[in-house]
């Protein structure tokens, strides 16, 4: 039997699990593992410039591929620096395994150099965590970590590996169980929906007069887009997507009403509010979706399909809870529909008439307040939505879109329709500024042949711009579109609207020269000063394929994102522009 050291077991286990990209940063606590990494020809390591960057890159890689993203960092500060990335992945249910070095077991608890209680610090933001006290724990725990991260409701898992467990001098037999044979008596996620509940749900779907599909990240995670498409088109059901599900239903489809929620479209929010049946698939009734829960969709009954039982009836009481994988449950639902159909239980005349009435109402919403920004344009200044529209054209609507957090994120979500899942990557739950650029690098490394566009702001970009060095070192060409308003735009929008215009610390009067910055990292920097330059500069940017292009676009500092739900109201209560409200 093959004899390996703990450090070698780490690398071999990752290889056996099919890990081809590892995002990390070496340090004292993981030196043995980095030494063993030199022997690997299967794993490509990406050396980041700050561990937070590694965690977001692995996250972007995971979102773009559906595979588990993998991170390797040292103990102490290396470990604490990935906390924001772990929390980001946890909030959005992204599969990720984070390997952290730890001081030797003999030193744990002694306040040793670069010692932190990583399991303790990360506990509330991981799906699970392991401490490998012995080298022989390593193959089992890393396998379990991948199994847990990628099954059920996905999420990040931390594996903490003390330095003595990695000892290169001590070798042990390497004899792991295959991933397919891993089982844990305490962990068996339910994937198949309860038959009786599926039946009830099916009846409600065929009887509803004003049904709506409210889809979330679970549709992406369970690869259920095609089935959602079929269900929607079979009964002409309108579809609204959360930020996490953008692209899971084609944005240009006639049944798509776009994003719902705080900055959702008027049609999406009004359709939710007026529906009589909400079919929630892998979505969790987040407060950024529902607005005031007590006023939430008063006439709607709710079917909620989610793999996590604790997401069901957590925020909003639902009528038919179905615990299961969205993909599997949609198969069950289809079968149940066929059954009802063969038994003559579907009154297609009535359904058609109901649907026509429902769409008449919805089309009224669409016409009353289509998505528009013209009313918010300051003459002579560039509106962020215009930038997104032009980037859409320049990228032929076919890019993987990654965003940071703030106004630009909402403009991208509203004005860059995506047709396929895993092509809109954004920190939804945690709202992590600084996420976008490293995540874009991760997505590009996963998909070298796809165009990857990162929409960011001057605020967000400055939180992780050091990763330009990764673009230089590994030749990762992404497009960074900085919507530069010399402000923290979303903070300012709230201050203007709810703090009597008192702009506390939301203006940045010292913004660096992003063009020179890009150049200093050997990349291309371009600037757009006004609207007349926009399309030409973007055309130039999108003609460059061998380098990262940072496009610094000087935009209106006073633009606002509309629609915007009115706090405390229902989904139907929205500000529609600076002067108009529902």
């Amino acid at each position, binding site marked *: 039997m093959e004899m390996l050291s703990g450090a070698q077991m780490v690398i071999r286990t990752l290889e056996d699990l099919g890990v081809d990209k590892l995002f990390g940063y070496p340090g004292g606590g993981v030196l043995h593992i980095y030494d063993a990494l030199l022997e690997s020809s299967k794993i490509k390591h990406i050396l980041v410039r700050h561990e937070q960057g590694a965690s977001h890159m692995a996250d972007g890689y995971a979102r773009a591929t559906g595979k588990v993203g993998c991170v390797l960092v040292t103990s102490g500060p290396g470990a604490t620096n990935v906390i924001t990335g772990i929390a980001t992945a946890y909030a959005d249910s992204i599969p990720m395994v984070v390997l952290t070095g730890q001081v030797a077991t003999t030193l744990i608890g002694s306040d040793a150099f670069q010692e932190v209680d990583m*399991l*303790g610090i990360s*506990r*509330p933001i991981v*799906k*699970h*965590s392991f*401490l490998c006290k012995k080298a022989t724990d390593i193959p089992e725990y890393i396998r379990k970590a991948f199994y*847990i991260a990628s099954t059920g409701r996905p999420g990040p898992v931390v594996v903490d590996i003390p330095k003595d467990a990695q000892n290169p001098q001590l070798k042990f037999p390497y004899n792991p169980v295959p991933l397919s044979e891993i089982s*844990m*008596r*305490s*962990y068996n996620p339910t994937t198949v929906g309860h038959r009786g509940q599926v039946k009830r749900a099916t009846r409600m779907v065929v009887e509803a007069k004003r049904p709506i599909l409210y889809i979330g990240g679970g549709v992406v995670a369970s690869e259920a887009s095609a089935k959602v498409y079929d269900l929607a088109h079979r009964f002409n059901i309108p579809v609204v997507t959360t930020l996490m599900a953008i692209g899971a239903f084609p944005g240009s489809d006639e049944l798509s009403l776009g994003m719902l929620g705080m900055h959702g479209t008027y049609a999406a929010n009004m359709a939710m509010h007026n529906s009589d049946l909400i079919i929630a698939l892998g979505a969790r009734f987040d407060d950024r979706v529902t607005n005031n829960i007590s006023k939430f969709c008063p006439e709607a009954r709710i079917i909620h399909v989610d793999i*996590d*039982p*604790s997401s069901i*009836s*957590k925020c909003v009481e639902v009528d038919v809870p179905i615990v299961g994988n969205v993909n599997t449950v949609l198969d069950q639902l289809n079968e149940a529909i066929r059954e009802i159909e063969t038994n003559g239980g579907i009154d297609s005349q009535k359904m058609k008439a109901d649907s026509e009435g429902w769409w008449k109402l919805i089309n009224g919403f669409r016409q009353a307040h289509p998505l528009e920004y013209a009313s918010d344009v300051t003459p002579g200044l560039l509106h962020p939505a215009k930038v997104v529209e032009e980037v859409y054209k320049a990228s032929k609507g076919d890019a993987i879109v990654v965003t940071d957090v703030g106004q630009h994120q909402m403009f991208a979500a509203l004005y860059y329709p995506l047709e396929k899942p895993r092509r809109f990557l954004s920190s939804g739950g945690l709202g992590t500024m600084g996420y976008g650029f490293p995540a874009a690098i991760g997505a590009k490394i996963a998909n070298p042949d796809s165009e990857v566009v990162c929409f960011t702001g001057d605020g967000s970009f400055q939180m992780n711009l050091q990763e330009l060095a990764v673009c230089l070192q590994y030749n990762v060409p992404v497009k960074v579109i900085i919507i530069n308003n010399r402000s923290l735009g979303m903070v300012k929008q709230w201050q203007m609207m709810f703090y009597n215009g008192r702009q506390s610390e939301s203006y940045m009067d010292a913004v660096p020269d992003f063009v020179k910055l890009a150049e200093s990292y050997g990349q291309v920097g371009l600037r757009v000063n006004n609207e007349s330059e926009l399309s030409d500069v973007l055309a130039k940017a999108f003609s460059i394929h061998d380098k990262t292009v940072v496009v610094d676009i000087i935009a209106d500092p006073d633009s606002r994102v509309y629609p915007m739900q009115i706090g405390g109201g229902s989904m139907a209560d929205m500000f529609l522009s600076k002067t108009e409200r529902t």
Partner: protein
Amino acid sequence: MKHIISVLLENEAGALSRVVGLFSQRGFNIESLTVAPTEDDTLSRMTIVTCCDDDEVEQITKQLHKLIDVLKVFDLADSGHIEREIMLAKVRANTRDLRDEVKSISDIFHGQIVDLTPDLYTIQVIGSSDELNNFLTAISQAVDIVEIIRSGVCGISQGERSLRP
């Protein structure tokens, strides 16, 4: 309303801190918590007493179940169950009258005197939380309490129902 949640979980380092962390992280309160290994020493059995409404206990149960180490969770208070708690009470009994009084109260509650000095009696009482509360009220009216310690509740279902892996 009082809920007594019984949890069967892996007897592993970190499992307890995950449970306790969950309660503080999600703003649930814990009135008492007891934990010890079962007849299978790879498993621990925990009893958590919490006061909350039914919606909240549903969330607590679901969140506990979501922890990877947890095998089984149920609310004992939903059906017939036995709950027991142990209390050790050290009281000042420095006269013959007081000692007699302590002895008779402790007999009523089936308590035992487990330690004594010329001035102090230590009484062990086992029962439901309510019984212990009643004992405490009675004894505190008779003598000065020096200190008490309670184990927290451990509970088990009546009849066939059981919490097994």
